[in-house]
């Protein structure tokens, strides 16, 4: 940041002050990028207590956005305690939050954010550009190296204007800043500097809809409504996240009214929820498509080298029956290996179950009696899915053995490219289609066992394409090729089944597409409260 004549910082590349002008604001409005109004919707005062039975032990690292891991679970807490500049919101991904608007320069090298006026942290301190810069520079979670490598500097114009200067055009900057990392989640600079990192984890202060009250490791997290939350006054006064690791116990607690929401209920138990008067099921679909992958498709000696064999495997999957049996029909059957809620998703034709056609294609490919396909390797947590798919494969003549591996061994082996035959996998990593293709399809990808040059070439082109429409075209083309070559045989996009008790008026499940937790929390309401 360099000082200008009026004391404001300047853009080192262009030398003009960063203070937003009326023209900037008009420009933003014209671009349709201006966010929601700054006026918060103040409904009735928050009331009552809502208890959420959580399936996993809450970790204090989730209280600090700087340590956001590349998994979705921390966002269970972050959506309550903290707020981001931009984040996925109902109907908007990303939606403007602490930043009421943002814009990118035509050359893709600078991103200007305008902070929402009058927003405060839970301790009453205003959210300023200093906090934004501090939070970004302090960030050390997933993909922090990528962020730091690509962002040259963060300039502060005034307390409400901040500019990110990139070293080179990076079309995915907003994706990474808003959802794929925690770099855009803002913490109060003054408070963090005062209490230190450990102190912050013990008593976090954020700008989210709920304030931290207490945390007992392995037991519960207690939160209280932040009445002044900019987006909306939360409907529930107090939220308690109670850790109940056992699924049956969570269901019992829901039935007894000890918890109002029980996260993660298996299908067998979910049927009990359906049978119980007053309880309802919610099954948001996350960002994790499950698929079969054929690592031998690049080996000319393998049956999987023939695209017809791979297509036959896809045709053999009776997704509807499997979905009904394992997730009560709540999962989304898909014909894509990529999440339907991701930016640049190309909608493929719907999946088809046709075992007759599968047998026919196999015969055409030279396997009239089927073939021995070796191992079907999967994460043991989803061995039930593997077993069901395997039965379908056997029915058309693709004979394989189930090889369930403990989760760590599975992903270690998958990443080390040790598996052969058939792999059943999935990923819930954040990002967009480009980030997903990079890991699973493109040459050198963490989980790519081989590559197709045309895909690599398209990927390289899209990585520097600033025109959104052209980039979309390239990424659509890549997905079409993945589909045509049947690199993956998609199964479903998994639903996260949860139970909701009779006191809850609105559970918030599914409001944010691809997010499996009951957020935004300010939307939660209790009956009669």
């Amino acid at each position: 940041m360099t000082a200008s004549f009026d004391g404001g910082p300047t853009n080192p590349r262009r030398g003009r002050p960063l203070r937003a002008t009326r023209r900037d604001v008009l420009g933003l409005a014209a671009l349709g990028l201006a966010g929601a109004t700054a006026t918060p919707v103040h409904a009735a005062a928050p009331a009552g207590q809502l208890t959420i039975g959580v399936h996993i032990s809450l970790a204090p690292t989730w209280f600090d956005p700087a340590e956001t891991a590349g998994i979705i679970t921390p966002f269970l807490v972050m959506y309550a305690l903290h707020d981001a500049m931009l984040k996925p919101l109902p109907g908007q991904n990303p939606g403007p939050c602490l930043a009421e608007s943002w814009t990118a320069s035509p050359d893709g090298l600078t991103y200007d954010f305008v902070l929402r006026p009058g927003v405060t942290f839970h301790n009453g301190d205003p959210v300023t550009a200093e906090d934004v810069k501090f939070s970004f520079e302090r960030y050390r979670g997933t993909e922090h190296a990528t962020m730091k490598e690509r962002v040259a500097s963060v300039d502060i114009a005034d307390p409400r204007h901040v500019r990110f200067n990139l070293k080179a055009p990076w079309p995915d900057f907003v994706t990474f800043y808003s959802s794929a990392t925690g770099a855009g989640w803002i913490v109060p600079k003054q408070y963090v500097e005062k209490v230190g990192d450990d102190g912050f984890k013990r008593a976090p202060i954020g700008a989210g809809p709920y304030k931290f009250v207490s945390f007992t490791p392995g037991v519960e997290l207690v939160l209280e409504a932040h009445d002044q939350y900019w987006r909306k006054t939360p409907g529930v006064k107090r939220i308690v996240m109670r850790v109940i690791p056992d699924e049956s116990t969570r269901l019992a607690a829901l039935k007894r009214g000890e918890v109002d929401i029980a996260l993660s209920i298996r299908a067998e138990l979910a049927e009990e929820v359906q049978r119980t008067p007053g309880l309802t099921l919610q099954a948001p679909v996350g960002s994790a498509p499950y698929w079969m992958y054929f690592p031998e498709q690049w080996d000319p000696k393998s049956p999987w080298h023939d695209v017809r064999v791979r297509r036959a495997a896809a045709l053999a999957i009776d997704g509807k029956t499997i979905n009904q049996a394992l997730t009560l029909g709540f999962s989304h059957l898909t014909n894509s290996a990529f999440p339907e809620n991701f930016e640049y998703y190309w909608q493929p034709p719907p999946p088809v179950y046709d075992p007759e056609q599968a047998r026919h294609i196999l015969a055409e490919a030279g396997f009239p009696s089927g073939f021995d396909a070796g191992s079907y390797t999967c994460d043991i947590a989803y061995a039930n899915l593997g077993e069901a798919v395997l039965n379908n494969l056997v029915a058309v003549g693709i004979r394989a053995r189930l090889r369930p591996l403990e989760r760590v061994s599975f992903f270690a082996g998958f990443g080390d490219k040790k598996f052969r035959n058939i792999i059943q996998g999935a990923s819930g990593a954040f990002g967009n289609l480009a980030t997903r293709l990079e890991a699973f399809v493109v040459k050198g990808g963490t989980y790519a066992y081989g590559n197709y040059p045309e895909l690599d070439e398209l990927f390289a082109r899209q990585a520097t394409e600033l025109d959104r429409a052209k980039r979309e075209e390239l990424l659509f083309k890549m997905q079409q090729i993945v589909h045509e070559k049947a690199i993956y045989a998609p199964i479903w996009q998994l639903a996260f089944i949860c139970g909701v008790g009779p006191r809850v008026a609105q559970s918030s499940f599914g409001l944010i597409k691809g997010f499996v937790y009951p957020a935004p929390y300010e939307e939660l309401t209790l009956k009669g409260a």
Partner: protein
Amino acid sequence: MKQFIIRRLGYSLISLIVLSLTIFFFVRVTGDPATLLVEPGASEADIAAIHHQFGLDRPLVVQYLLFMANLARGDLGQSFYYQMPVSELYLSRLPNSLLLAAVAMSFSLLIGIPTGILAAVRVGSFWDSAGKLFALLGLSLPSFFVGLLMILFFSVYLGWLPSSGSGTALHLIMPAFALGWYFAAAHMRLMRSSMLEVLGSEYIKLARLKGLPQALVIGKHALKNALTPVLTLAGINLVLMINVAVIVETVFAWPGVGRLLYEGVSFRDFPVVQGVVILGGAMIVVVNLLVDILYAVIDPRIRLET
């Protein structure tokens, strides 16, 4: 006696070193914790950063020596998952485990000792068979199954008890029973066999020949001697209850040390697993040491033999 104690202390120290070596290397065989802290598809840089943050990129021997050096200073390390000192986590869970163990142990002794005596005194009778059945069920029914049945019956159907959690006396009843039953069965069996052995001894026959009432023979003369092995076992069991009530604490969401161990194993949280196992092992070693010394004080032959 002094030499005996020094020798026993040496054995205890060796046991703890062997335990530390075993648990340190054993947990590392289970896999890379970084894999559980990121989603599939995470960059290698992210995984490497986690390795570096937790010191997992150092040679194993260096990691072990650091672990032992810290342990000698009373530092059990920092939890990968909770990002808190393991000792702090352990101490925050310990009171819950002590409470649960104390109630479960009281229950197991209150049930196990009288039923064991009754079964021994009335060998072959209905009471003996009932006691054997009680012991058989207690030892063979998995505690998670007992726990879930209790939740279903007492929480869901009858609505008498909270299904899980902690905070009130009512929260203690089901986990204490589920945990205590197994140990009550073990205590009952030992009490029965020990009592049978004592009842066959000469001094009991003499007491009976002298015409002492049955209650006095059993309650005063036989019980004291028959109780010794049961109480010794109870001491060791108490340590086990405190540290390894993994299943019961998980089913009932009881925030004790056992559940901490479960969480440590689930998340490949090496420092937590190491810490809980080392502290649990240390408790067992200390209890054994005290028992050995106590035996040596009571019976001089022991200190001369070993």
